[in-house]
């Protein structure tokens, strides 16, 4: 049994994949908790899907994926902010239209005859293909996101818990709500090369949903979300090795399976108010 769990990691390929996914988990798990508490799950999904054209253009230009991800996230965020402002559509419809358009544009670019056949990798990530440099980069970005969350803990709590009183208690909503979205963007960029534009949301949101269902104190929730993200990552890699499945998809499915189990086992979350 132990060998079944450890065998996969004899390969340097899987060692690097494990390092990448663990590094990402430390930031993505806690980030997801804040995203869910701020009811920004849709924004998380939109930003990560909407960056696809940026990733494709990076491949076409031979630039680093992280650079494309950063540019893609900026364009997606700007587009979403712009369209969401149109009162005829309403924010939700605006975001949906904008993201569909961006995913479509990304696919169009990627499927053009001149493009290298890497669309799959951009949408689903290439966890087994990460290099040492990718890991260092992911660690730097995830570390920055994690530090921002630790430093902003009390302010994020004040604003999220009781927006109307936050300023009187020392935290400005107008500063911390955009700050969380900025951290989300950084986390998204960090996770893009490993998990891809479609799957990375699973590592952000699923462990967080599980942790929220299982804990009653925020510091534990944040720590558990990081741990569950890491466990999903490791379990996904083991499964993908033995069952010969795609690595990123296995990680995403493990995260979602854990969340489903936790929601079944955990407390009934208080109704949204």
């Amino acid at each position, binding site marked *: 049994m132990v060998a079944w769990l450890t065998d996969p990691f004899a390969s340097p390929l899987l060692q690097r994949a494990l390092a990448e996914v663990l590094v990402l988990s430390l930031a993505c798990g806690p980030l997801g908790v804040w995203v869910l*508490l701020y009811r920004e799950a849709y924004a998380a999904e939109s930003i990560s899907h909407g960056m696809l054209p940026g990733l494709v253009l990076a491949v076409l230009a031979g630039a680093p994926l992280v650079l494309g991800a950063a540019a893609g996230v900026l364009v997606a965020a700007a587009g979403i902010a712009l369209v969401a402002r149109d009162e005829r559509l309403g924010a939700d419809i605006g975001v949906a239209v904008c993201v569909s358009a961006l995913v479509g544009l990304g696919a169009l670019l990627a499927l053009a005859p001149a493009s290298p056949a890497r669309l799959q990798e951009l949408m689903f990530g290439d966890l087994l293909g990460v290099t040492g440099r990718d890991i260092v980069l992911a660690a730097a970005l995830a570390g920055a996101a994690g530090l921002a969350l630790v*430093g*902003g*803990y*009390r*302010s994020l*709590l*004040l604003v*999220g*818990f*009781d*927006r*109307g*009183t936050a*300023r*009187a*208690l*020392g*935290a400005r909503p107008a500063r911390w709500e955009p700050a969380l979205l900025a951290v989300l963007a950084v986390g998204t960029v960090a996770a893009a090369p490993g998990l891809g534009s479609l799957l990375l949301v699973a590592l952000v949101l699923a462990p967080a949903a599980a942790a*929220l269902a299982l*804990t*009653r*104190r*925020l510091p*534990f*929730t944040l720590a558990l979300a990081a741990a569950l993200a890491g466990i999903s990552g490791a379990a996904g890699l083991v499964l993908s090795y033995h069952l010969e499945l795609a690595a990123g998809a296995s990680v995403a499915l493990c995260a979602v399976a854990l969340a489903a189990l936790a929601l079944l086992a955990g407390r009934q*979350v*208080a*109704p*949204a*108010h």
Partner: protein
Amino acid sequence: MTGVEVRDLGGGYAPGRDALRGVGFAAAPGAIVGVLGPNGGGKTTLFRALLGELPVRRGEIALPAPPAYVPQTDRARLDFPVSAFDVALMGAYARTPFWRRVARADRDAARAALARLGLAEQAEATFGALSGGQRQRVLIARALLQDAAVLLLDEPFGGVDAVSAARIEALLAELRAEGRTLFVATHDVRQARGWDQVLCLHGRQIAYGPPAAVLTAATLQATYGSELIVLEGGRTAVGVGHHEH
């Protein structure tokens, strides 16, 4: 401690659309000011102005120090994984640098504030699992941690149980005795009669002064208009049935 002085205050949430105008009064330290008015009459807008958070504001406000604010309990999220103690402790966040742990003295103060409101045993309970009245008391404990000379309470008696109401009422009297100035938004005219001053708002200031002088049938009529219910025998009550959220 000095009191609160407001002169010719007006403003609202967007330019050209005043939610409140013509407000002027002076409240001494150690006074409870009842703030009466219909929903949308400007009670919360006045509090926003005193907090320095009203987007559009004219006139002058003199405060001894930034006030503490107790929101209506339904403004706080029930699905956050925080305990009553965690919430009370938020009152000390503003004086704690972000890289430091909250001071032991403040943690002790949070427990003491909860105990003062009869919630010593609920300190570790999840905020969202408490009753409405208990949650209101936790939010008041949070304001106590701010140790402010001026407290603004937005309908602290709205929808609370009798035990909580009695606790809150007793605490208000204690805070008044400590020389703090309290502004209490309420719909309960009879309760306001027991306080020091009454401020009646209906988009503008209708009246300000001691309850005996202000709480006349004519002033209440001007404040509440059609919401006012005249009971048999000439006593008046305020109809707030539509206020439930």
